[in-house]
């Protein structure tokens, strides 16, 4: 909305305000939409896909806000939260929950697990100030690898999850069997002119966006942001920045764990083993595309970023397939955009500790 007011002071200021990468990517998205309209692709399907995928990735992206605001940088260790969520789902299925009960139980357990994991992770991040991003990445990788061992060794025996032969859990667990596939998506969902609106999914995403938005207006939230902007000043004003960073990382881990539950129910499958390994990067990229930097992020960045990024990914594939038959460029495009935007954000980080 604000850009309309800004227009008087010139296009340049507007672009600076929104952020150059966001503008470029938004233009690219509009271009893709125009092309897909020209080559007569079903726009309604594309947009429904975008809404669905935006919603299902939403919480994972939202998890970036607390950690960025606290000065820890984007949460590259998102797999920690994800593994907590996955473990909660697997426990829920093992204990025989189905449907909504499964989702609620899983959510509650995930919050407990993620709080503990987030606390430890927060302590770690406080010990390695200055190189959080690199260490967070490898922490996430290591946790994913450890959990691969865990999935193979857990003594769970539910028929929904077991291999037919041998020990361990399956690579993908269907949520159909426990009546939880798309259960949030389908809540109050409706269709308008071929456009399918996953109301429940969007409502849950909106609810958590609101919670985070409110949280950063409470005393604790403001203290966290202050510590992120200038840790020394915050410390001098009597704020316990270390404690605040831990709180922010706990929140981020919790959002990650709930995010994967939302993601899995929308997808219809729970993917374990190596699936979480690389999940942090698209989430980081999405919030950066929305206009965040490695040190500042808002809830609005999340909403813009996740729909824009997922929108590009959903439209690029059919467009590329139509234009250059037989090539699959969407994965290539994802890699270039995702990692390009992260690199751009890294070049904007001021070096050193000051």
């Amino acid at each position, binding site marked *: 909305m604000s850009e309309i007011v800004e227009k008087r002071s010139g296009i340049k200021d507007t672009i600076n305000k929104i952020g150059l990468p966001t503008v470029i990517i938004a233009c690219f998205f509009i271009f893709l939409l125009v092309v897909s309209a020209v080559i007569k692709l079903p726009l309604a399907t594309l947009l429904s896909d975008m809404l669905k995928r935006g919603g299902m990735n939403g919480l994972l992206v939202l998890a970036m806000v607390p950690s960025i605001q606290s000065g820890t940088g984007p949460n*590259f260790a998102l797999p920690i939260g994800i593994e907590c969520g996955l473990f909660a789902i697997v426990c829920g299925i093992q204990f025989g929950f189905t449907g909504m009960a499964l989702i609620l139980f899983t959510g509650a357990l995930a919050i407990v697990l993620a709080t503990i994991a987030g606390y430890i992770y927060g302590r*770690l991040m406080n*010990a*390695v*100030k*200055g*190189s959080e*991003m*690199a*260490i967070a*990445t*490898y*922490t996430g*990788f*290591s946790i*994913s*690898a*450890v959990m*691969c*061992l865990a999935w*193979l*060794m857990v003594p769970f025996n539910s028929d929904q999850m077991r291999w037919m032969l*041998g*020990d*361990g859990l399956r690579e993908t667990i269907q949520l159909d069997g426990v009546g939880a596939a798309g259960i949030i998506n389908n809540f109050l969902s409706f269709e308008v002119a071929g456009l399918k609106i996953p109301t429940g999914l969007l409502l849950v995403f909106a609810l958590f966006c609101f919670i985070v938005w409110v949280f950063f207006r409470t005393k604790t939230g403001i203290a966290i942001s202050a510590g992120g902007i200038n840790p020394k000043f915050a410390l001098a004003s009597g704020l316990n920045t270390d404690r605040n960073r831990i709180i922010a990382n706990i929140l981020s881990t919790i959002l990650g764990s709930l995010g994967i539950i939302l993601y899995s129910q929308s997808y219809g499958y729970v993917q374990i083993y190596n699936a979480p390994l690389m999940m942090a*990067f698209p989430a980081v990229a999405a919030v950066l595309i929305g206009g965040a930097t490695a040190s500042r992020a808002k809830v609005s960045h999340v909403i813009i970023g996740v729909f824009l990024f997922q929108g590009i990914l959903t439209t690029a594939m059919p467009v590329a397939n139509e234009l*250059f*038959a*037989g*090539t*699959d*460029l969407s*994965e*290539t*495009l*994802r*890699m*270039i955009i*995702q*990692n*390009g935007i*992260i*690199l751009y954000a*890294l*070049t904007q*980080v001021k*070096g*050193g*500790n000051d």
Partner: protein
Amino acid sequence: MVKLDNKNTEKMSLYTWVMNNLVTLIFLAFTLFGFLVAEGVSADYFLTEITSRLYRNGILVLSLIIPVLAGLGLNFGIVIGAMAGQIAIAIVRFFDMGGLGGLALTFIISAPLAAIFGYFTGILYNKTRGQEMIASLIVGFFANGLYQFLFLFVVGAIIPVPKGHPMIMPNGIGIRMSIDMGTLKYSLENILEVPFMWGVLVVAGVMLVVMLLKRFNVIKAKKGSKRQVGIMPWVNMGLCAVLVVISIHAIVTNSNLMLVKKIPIGTVVIILLVCLFTELIMKTKLGQDFRSVGQNQHIAEVSGINVDRTRIIATIISTVLASWGMIIYLQNMGTLSTYSAHTNIGMFAVASLLVGGASLSKAGIKNAIVGAVLFNAMFIMSPAIGQAVFGQALLGEYFRTFMMYGVIGVALGIYVWKNNKQSKTTL
């Protein structure tokens, strides 16, 4: 094992020595444990695997040393060098060239490509100062996207290629999932191969003679190098003597140890040349610049060193070496998996170097070689241990992936944590 350092033992308590080499020792213990529990691993199989992996990965690991010394940290961006090597191979194989000449051509083509890539990567590292480690990881992913774009789309859609070419996908756009290396395969190995035990005999024998001569002052020790005291020289001599005896025994009785894969002299010579190059360049003015920049960029800048340029040169050298390392790796593998061969190279090499006892600011040839041996030993042993202890080889495979990430994570974490603690006490 002879090369395990004995310099540090003098004047340093055993405790600090153990703490400083903890990761290396854990890997050593893990390998030995593997020998104890796993039955399927015979000495000749193990030695074959470990040596061939050492020849294969050696240069890739060595290519990481210079960026570490220049203060860039661990350059995960060697993936980009690997891509340059693969592009060179694709070009050479496209025109169906092979043999030693073809291999030389891949070296020649990949060098300028890698230099250009390294130049741009270096500029990026200068812009992401302080975050090079994560930037180098991400730039590898990013370059992978561009690489895929080149091989999946540009080849065929923009660069015209004949449709029926065996390397090109059936529809005429993009390169197939795997490229056959043709006669490039083993081209370096085929020059000359020496039975492993003869190699051990010669190396151990020469070392033994040199050490004995040094001990009895027949040849003077190099100036400046302190005369070794204590029992370590004797232990080393003993080890060499044992190796000589073992190899003579194996040769005479033609035991299983003679089944170990022969030593490809060509590859070994190149690895030694790269070692020599790394040693020598650190003695030049440029090498001194690397060190000063690595120690403190501000002081280096003040004393008239062009810090940005020095860092870019370090990145270029690393990238070029990595591209050659990848070519040697692939000529040993025999096929090039076009879209996946390079993806894990960076992490493998970095983990190897760290296992060898390197840190983010200190690395040497010894670290690279010891690390490459031990890391690969863990890699070979892991499934065998998983099978023996838990009855599941898959467990061992996940375990070794964990070790790879874990080693990198722990090494990074401890380094930064120590530095933060130090800067706190000095403040």
